[in-house]
């Protein structure tokens, strides 16, 4: 009986050897988009999904340069006003025309209290439609980098949003789910065909897409499946059940490269990993040094920096998928220079001497807080650092936790020594200064990720000034000065820039994006 059942099953499966449809690209990554509402969640996988359906005014190309999307051109026409000329003859996928009113509506929606993108455009005072193809964005004072921020703000149809009662981003106070959570309609290259959160999302080509001529070859259909377990994801790629994997585990990359029919694309990601030190407190909360703060002494910070053998971490822990860093920001960010990114020499003898000079010849004990599910090999990095610091007498008590515990702990400023990573969505150094280096000030909304207690009036001034400076040369000088200041002050010990690896079938052509956000309109599949 049982044998008969097995036999029947085998025959059934034999007959139905799946025929692959032409021009469908199947891809997988670890987690699904949280929502299709384009203004509700500022989160990587959510943005990666939604940018295929919704367009911004300006988009990032694979080199992360700003290229025209719904806006054809943009220029400042007054110190506080940017003018955007919109692309003519654009239609939403339901056939209705796209106009300046949709831009005004979408920006106001993104400014609503329930929007998760408010911070990006908090400088916006008003958005005005001058004519159907011209929009003015008026800011509170000059904002030279507004175009960079517009790359994150997606444009919805005003009529569609009003019809479906989603004129505000979803809120957790709503009892029911809003229409926009699982439905989407935009001007982008794809339309949603099926949305089954956490299971499967199918998108088909938008027949009314304005860029059909510019992008003639992109796949007709995208099928996305989240696959949580890394080994299952790799198995699916190797066995040909998916064509593209966004986040192949680093330890499997060698295996993938060896497999016939598969290839990888690699690039430095716009995300840097570093250690933060509480240098501002009078006494460290988690240390055996009482009455004073060893991290307040620059010699101690310098010693720790020089005691870390980044090359060993790169080759042993990161399997070479890391670029050792001297700066907490990555190549590709405006203001980055290779000279600044040069690491200080690894030198244990010098580090020991610095420790002795600072009055800690025998070191001290401190707790290192580390996430274990946020960055590539994060916990292993911390373990390696703990071993290296032991060489100069610093006894590290490593506390590795899930990100749901790690970040709230940091935000309560309840850590003396921690690992953190930082990406820069705007690709401008100001983003780094304002969140990581400016004196933490809740009222001014600056320094919200500065958990080091670092405070330097000169840096604060430079950071505030570069936000408003429209003269590019003057502004670049400010950025360079600010970097020189913080590199000298050393509140963070830089470790490396993450490298990202995208794994895919030979049939797929796909340029890699350093922000780890694939845009499949640039892809091709044979």
């Amino acid at each position, binding site marked *: 009986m*049982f044998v008969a059942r097995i036999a029947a099953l085998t025959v059934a499966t034999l007959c139905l*050897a799946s025929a692959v449809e032409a021009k469908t690209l199947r891809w997988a990554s670890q987690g699904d988009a949280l929502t299709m509402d384009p203004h509700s969640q500022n989160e990587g996988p959510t943005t990666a999904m939604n940018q295929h359906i919704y367009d911004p005014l300006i988009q990032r190309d694979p080199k992360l340069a700003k290229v025209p999307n719904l806006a054809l051109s943009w220029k400042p026409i007054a110190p506080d006003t940017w003018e955007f000329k919109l692309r003519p003859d654009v239609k939403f996928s339901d056939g209705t025309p796209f106009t300046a009113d949709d831009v005004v509506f979408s920006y106001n929606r993104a400014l609503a209290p329930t929007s998760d993108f408010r911070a990006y455009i908090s400088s916006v005072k008003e958005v005005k439609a001058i004519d159907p193809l011209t929009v003015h964005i008026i800011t509170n004072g000059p904002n030279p980098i507004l175009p960079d921020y517009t790359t994150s703000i997606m444009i919805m149809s005003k009529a569609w949003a009003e019809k479906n009662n989603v004129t505000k981003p979803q809120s957790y106070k709503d009892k029911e789910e809003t229409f926009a959570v699982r439905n989407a309609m935009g001007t982008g290259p794809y339309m949603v065909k099926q949305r089954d959160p956490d299971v499967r999302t199918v998108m088909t080509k938008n027949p009314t897409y304005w860029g059909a001529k510019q992008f003639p070859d992109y796949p007709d259909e995208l099928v996305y499946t989240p696959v949580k377990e890394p080994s299952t994801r790799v198995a699916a790629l190797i066995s040909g059940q998916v064509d593209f994997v966004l986040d192949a585990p680093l330890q499997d990359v060698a295996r993938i490269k060896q497999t016939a029919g598969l290839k990888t694309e690699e690039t430095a990601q716009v995300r840097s990993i570093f250690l933060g030190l509480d240098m501002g407190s009078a006494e460290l909360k988690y240390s055996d040094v009482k009455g004073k703060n060893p991290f307040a002494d620059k010699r101690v910070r310098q010693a720790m920096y020089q005691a870390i053998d980044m090359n060993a971490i790169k080759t042993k822990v990161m399997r070479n998928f890391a670029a050792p860093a001297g700066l907490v920001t990555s190549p590709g960010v405006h203001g980055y220079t290779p000279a600044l990114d040069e690491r200080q020499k690894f030198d244990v003898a010098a580090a020991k001497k610095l420790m002795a000079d600072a009055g800690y010849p025998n070191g001290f004990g401190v707790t290192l807080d580390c996430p274990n599910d946020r960055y590539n090999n994060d916990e292993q990095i911390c373990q390696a650092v703990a071993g290296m610091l032991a060489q100069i007498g610093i006894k590290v008590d490593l506390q590795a936790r899930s990100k749901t*515990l790690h970040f709230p702990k940091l935000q309560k400023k309840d850590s003396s020594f921690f690992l953190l990573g930082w990406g820069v969505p705007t690709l401008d150094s100001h983003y780094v200064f304002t969140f990581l280096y400016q004196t933490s000030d*809740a009222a001014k909304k600056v320094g919200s990720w500065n958990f080091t207690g670092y405070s330097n009036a000169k840096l604060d001034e430079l950071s505030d000034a570069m936000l408003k400076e429209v003269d590019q040369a003057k502004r670049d000088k400010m950025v360079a000065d600010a970097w020189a200041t913080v590199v000298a002050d050393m509140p963070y010990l830089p470790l490396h820039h993450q490298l990202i690896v995208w794994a895919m079938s030979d049939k797929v052509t796909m340029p890699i994006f350093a922000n780890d956000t694939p845009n499949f309109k640039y892809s091709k599949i044979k």
Partner: protein
Amino acid sequence: MLAFIVSRLLQSLAVMLAVSFLCFVLFNFVGDPVNNMVGQEASASDREEMRRDLGLEDSVAVQFARFLGNAVTGNFGKSYRLARPVSDLIVERMPATLELVAVAALLALSMGIPLGVLTALRRHSVDSGAIMTFSLAGVAMPTFVIGILLIYVFSVECISWAPAIGLPAGWCFPSFGRGETVKLGWWNTGLLTASGLKAIVLPAFTLSLFQMTLVLRLVRSQMLEVLRTDYIKFARARGLTDRAVHFRHALKNTLLPVITVIGIQIGGLIAFSIITETVFQWPGMGQLFIQSVQFADIPVMAAYLVMVSFIFVAINFFVDLLYATIDPRLRLDRAQLGTAGG
């Protein structure tokens, strides 16, 4: 009997209350969901406001009371992660888990019983020895190892070995997902499509292996015991064929305890399915739960745990009732105890 049922019901209710309260205490250790719910640019005051809106600032007791109040009316709140009502999510995921569990249980029985009988009847043969060794592996190997091993052999390496032995490459099994599904009302079934049937083979086998070996060993030991009893000897003396003795007389009498154990193990299957579902990206409740834990999605975790404890409590309740019906001594004892105690 009525008093027995009522007292059992009250006990079940108390167990469920205790379980859900324990869950709520534990939720304090899974971390803060707010960090996952807002972008890194959100200010401290935004985060605080959201925490207040969600009621996370309240004490455990207040949060628990609020949860109970809502749960009684069937409202489990909205998922922090997916912004959708929790009851919708659970209803969507339930068919996947129940189908997986049902197929796994079927596999466990349809392979465990015949193999158990075989090993009991042919105790000293080589094939029984092989089966018993295999069953040890089934008991001892963790589910995720079995799952990954099966994926490796039957979906990754399969591409090279299947054509070599004359099977088409399409014969290999998918390593993840549920295949195509068909909607029957609200029930989303994968058992009616070829790709769905194919997709369930590896996960169901993985999930069933432990139960299968359990059934196998149970049937074998029961069978060996029954074969030694007088009525079997008498049946043989009557000159009945081996077939009649083994299957009509012996096997029938071994099955009762097996069915009881399997009934209780169904709850275990649902719990074990968390791991199987994660390995095979099976879109069931177990996977929903794991994702919720990683996100600290408290409403989903609470609803899932309450539901699983409900399943366990319900199964135990019915088993108790069944015992009381089958075994009159239970009722008698209680009645006597009742009068003795006044």
